[in-house]
């Protein structure tokens, strides 16, 4: 394996996923293997190549600014694991 480039704890933090120790060690192995393979791309000189983020020429799509009478608040809120008085409920943010 090439020199380790990633800090699994930091990546877990960025991804907002709690990982157990066994998950971390398994992921470290797989990630190391995948990144070693991805090194293949460094063989290609891309200094004059423009990046493609999207294959179609995307344009901004605007619709007419019309008020629609639809209010689905109740239906959407129904899906929430926890709600209270017409709002989403989450654990304490500032302790």
């Amino acid at each position, binding site marked *: 394996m090439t020199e380790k480039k990633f800090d699994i704890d930091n990546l877990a933090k960025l991804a*907002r996923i709690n990982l157990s120790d066994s998950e971390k060690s398994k992921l470290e192995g797989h990630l190391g293997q995948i990144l070693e393979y991805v090194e293949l791309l460094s063989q290609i000189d891309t200094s004059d190549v423009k990046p493609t983020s999207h294959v179609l020429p995307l344009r901004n799509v605007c619709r007419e600014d019309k008020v629609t009478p639809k209010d689905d608040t109740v239906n959407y809120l129904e899906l929430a694991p926890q709600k209270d008085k017409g709002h989403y409920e989450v654990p304490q943010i500032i302790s």
Partner: protein
Amino acid sequence: MHRKTILQARDDLKNKKYSACELLEAIYNRIDSVEEKVRSYIHLSKELALEQAKEADARLASGDDAPLLGIPIALKDLICTKGSRTTCGSKILDNFVSPYDATVVKKLKEAGAVIIGKTNMDEFAMGSTTESSAYYPTANPWDLSRTPGGSSGGSAAAVAANECIAALGSDTGGSIRQPASFCGVTGLKPTYGRVSRFGLVAFASSFDQIGPVTKTVADAAYLSGIICGNDPMDSTSANVSVPDFMAGLEKNVKGLKVGLPKEYFSSGVDPEVLENVQNSIKALEKLGIEPVEIELPHTQYAVATYYILACAEASANLSRFDGVKYGFRSESSGDLNKMYTNTRQEGFGDEVKRRIILGAFALSSGYYDAYYIKGQKVRTLIKKDFDQAFEKCDFIAGPNSPVPAFKLNEKLNDPLQMYLSDIFTLSVNLAGLPGMSIPCGFTSQNLPVGLQLIGRPFDEETILNIGNQFQKETDFHKKFPNL
């Protein structure tokens, strides 16, 4: 009755050979008899389907001629359906019932289709075996010890096992075509932007595309005619007119040129797959199609490029699953951040976590240019390869997958090996092109082999035309597994 294609069933319903309710009953009976072995579905919507079938019968009796009136169709379980679950094969969406229909579902319903259930898939469409489903793996109807491929493995297995008349899948790196090839059915990934993604749960937004999984190319053309088209609800859907795919099926193919990429006929391909594909190229030649050798020199970089870009997009897309607005929330208490991180730990499976983490890495400070931007630049080169190839040919043909269906559990602990098996399909998503897998033979172990046809952007018509002419000369698509 369950063996019928869309076009056959449509004729039979019109001619009153059987009713939509009888056809639905035949399909559910078939599901009852084989589902224990195959497990194509995550859930069925019997009551809703029966209502739809009854309505279809009433409409048929009144002389209504809607294009899918009474036809039982299955949907991959990441296409939102109002009033029934959409799980994405994930624990995190186990109880999710979408408040709206995806645009494709709206179109299917308007066309009179009967939605029978939602098919199994790799969790969030991440995988090539349907084994990463949080529910259970699906088996390949041709050999129950093998995978049906993935991620639309449930849709392909359901079509192959005649548990539906046709199905929809989605394809981000080969997820319609690879399972179609493993299960011996037809699977089309239309050009990026051809089909609305509104109501398709996003994996990698610049790659994802919905498409048909069917028993014949003619059915794929028929279904495409219904689901394709611009949609104001999807800003990436292309404003390009949709041709009459059915009329295009019978065009004369004589004189067309098929590009054979030398990189796709290399030593890495299983010899039996190669042999079947080469025989089908000969069959194309008999139709008057001229083979030309082409080069797609950046093929070897496609897997690395795809996994960087698709995982980066996935890590952003899947940030919405946080236990607040819908889906699963972890019971373990704590502050907001703990709720997020525990919900995602408990709600996502291994493959999804792996791809989110890989994506987070490619987008993280210090690595963004070296990985994410580098990937986007190589994507440009891969697309250019195809642009140049299409100067010499009208469409491209080659093996869909380098190997036939894998054994269950074979690739579970070797993600890189699984990723590498998608080499021929994911280049097509990187370039946004239409691609289709059609049955083109069997190995000595009686496993189906798929031929991939790749078209120019927005030229599904040519590959459907070629595929249909091929199926007129061959009978691989008429074979069914013994279950």
